[in-house]
């Protein structure tokens, strides 16, 4: 009985264990791996993926999927760079980009909600759309030269990377959103059973549109982060990023069928992907394709784990009457 209570925690524990294993293993193997710099860089380098993955977590928790995030990253980065090139101050430029990302997500959410087209298809079209829009803004890389960007990189160099701070605060906000707001709980409910959520009187339409908007916002934030990294914008940025984001969410223990999962798990998932990348960099002799293969293998392992947990849950859940039940029911004997 106690075991079942923690069933949803098992993938999370497994993820944390894998992360700990990779991190300590690498620390023993490579000199200088176990250092503050490497850890901070892990946060800094993967913030961009992290934002996207957090948005994706909400979408997947509600039983959906958002394939457009990578394209939104690409569009946002060129768009911001273009605006700045047109003498707009970065802050309003970033703000406009975030609004566009949010609005675009909301639009897809509305389409999914009101036409009953599968999320997969709508966000696929959204991906084409955004990628095309990004190319329309510019086919070339647009460099960003602005005191604001220099200030940020300066600050990051001396103190603590802005992106890492931003990343951790977004994780905090997302955890709050998921567990302490009605919106967050409605997302879990919709992922658990959408018809039930509707019958319980939850605002299904508003929540669904809201969560795709949220994913759009997170993706746009990822795009802005990209401009911080490279001090430039590129319509090709974030190609196939949606795959890494989905992988991070799944490795983080979120059930792809929706309803079960944690933002914290996604954070760990992102860090695992980051650690793999870092290990391969440290090793030096390995090639980048091993990253993809390793992620694939991890995905397989976690999906099989989920599968196993689900089927054993189905077994335990049926039939046998609950002892609590027997205690409360008046029993009449002949």
């Amino acid at each position, binding site marked *: 009985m106690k075991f079942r209570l923690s069933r949803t925690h098992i993938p999370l524990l497994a993820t944390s264990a894998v992360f700990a294993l990779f991190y300590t293993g690498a620390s023993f193997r490579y000199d200088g791996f176990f250092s503050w710099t490497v850890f901070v860089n892990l946060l800094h380098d993967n913030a961009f993926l992290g934002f996207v993955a957090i948005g994706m977590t909400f979408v997947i928790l509600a039983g959906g*999927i958002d394939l457009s995030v990578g394209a939104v990253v690409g569009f946002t980065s060129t768009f911001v760079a273009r605006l700045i090139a047109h003498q707009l101050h970065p802050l309003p430029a970033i703000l406009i980009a975030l609004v566009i990302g949010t609005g675009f997500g909301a639009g897809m959410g509305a*389409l999914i909600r*009101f*036409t*009953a*087209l*599968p999320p*997969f*298809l*709508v966000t*696929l*079209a*959204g*991906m*084409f*759309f955004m*990628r*095309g*829009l990004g*190319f*329309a803004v510019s*086919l070339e890389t647009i460099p960003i030269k602005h005191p604001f960007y220099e200030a940020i990189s300066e600050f990051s160099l001396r103190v603590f990377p802005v992106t890492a701070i931003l990343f951790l605060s977004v994780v905090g906000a997302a955890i709050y959103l998921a567990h302490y707001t009605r919106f967050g709980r409605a997302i879990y409910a919709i992922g658990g059973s959408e018809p039930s959520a509707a019958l319980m009187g939850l605002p299904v339409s508003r929540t669904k549109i809201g969560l795709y908007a949220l994913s759009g916002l997170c993706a746009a934030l990822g795009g802005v982060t990209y401009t911080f990294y490279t001090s430039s914008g590129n319509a090709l940025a974030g190609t196939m990023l949606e*795959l890494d984001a*989905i*992988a991070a969410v*799944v490795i983080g223990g979120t059930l*792809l*069928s929706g309803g079960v999962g944690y933002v914290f798990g996604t954070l760990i998932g992102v860090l695992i992907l980051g650690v793999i990348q870092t290990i391969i960099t440290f090793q030096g002799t390995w*090639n*980048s*394709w*091993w*990253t*993809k*293969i390793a*992620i*694939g*293998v991890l*995905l*397989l392992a976690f*999906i*099989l784990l989920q*599968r196993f947990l689900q*089927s054993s849950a189905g077994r335990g859940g049926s039939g046998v009457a609950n002892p609590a039940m027997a205690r409360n029911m008046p029993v009449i004997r002949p």
Partner: protein
Amino acid sequence: MSERLSRLMPARLRQLIWPLMALAALLLFNGLFTDGFARVTIRDGHAYGSLVDILKLSSRVMLVSLGMTLVIATAGVDLSVGAVVAIAGSVAARLIVQQQIGLPMALAATSGLCLVLGAWNGTLVGWLGVQPIVATLILMVAGRGIAQLLAGGQIITVESSGFSFIAGGYFLGLPFPVTMVALMLLLTVALTRGTALGLFIEAVGNNETAALFAGVNPCAVKMFAYAFTGLCSGMAGIIEASDIKAADANNAGLYLELDVILAVVIGGTPLNGGRFDLAGSLVGALIIQTLTTTIKMRGVPVEYTLVVKAVVVLVICLAQSPELRKLLLQRRASA
């Protein structure tokens, strides 16, 4: 009226009408307004022109869409086709260039390997019951890494006249890939409609439990669909590698899965499984390619291609969405 219509026309043909009309409209528009679109010239017994190009360029999508149609009909989806295309290119190129085994052997081995890759997806989906999107995501992510590993991170160029014939050659006046599509279409139709497989696929896709209880083996049916898609992807990979006379593990088949899924959906096979329409999927592939060619020939900047594609695809899917039709009908009724 609709009663009579349904009696005059078989159900399958009625489904095909929407995509066919869309294709006809596109072609008509181009025929009227795009210079030189309808022109087909014959040189040395080979046909040239935009229409021929559309046929040739859409051949990869058409090939893979044959398999994907079956997968989608079982209420699944295969995201890994692009990665399999990349693997097929790398394997074929390596076998031909480095192993020096004959071309037929190399092609057979490549196809066989892709069949196995498809069967891997089939195992995850059919026997282990993993959701199709998730199961095929694994190969989608890892597959490209494997392709790069096999190619050793390089672009392997292939100098073989036999190999370049596959994409560049002509047969019966038309590009050879068209023949390959035709043969594969025949094979697929023979496999699904000539045997009971088509019935089983539709039964499994429409109501898996009922199919299981009626004695159909859903695992085997799914296994077939995914393995067959693997084979189709392998052939598409060979065409792609032959076309550029090289294996490019980074870019081969990139975003192919999206075009293919769109082709199938435009062709009228519903994403939640059931009835499938092979001819519709081919028409869908032609629509996508015609659209791309149109954009190019109309002088629209290439960068807008994707935007236009997105809008058109959405409009076609919306037109087919029963929910939207219901919504509109309600509006009209209440107004």
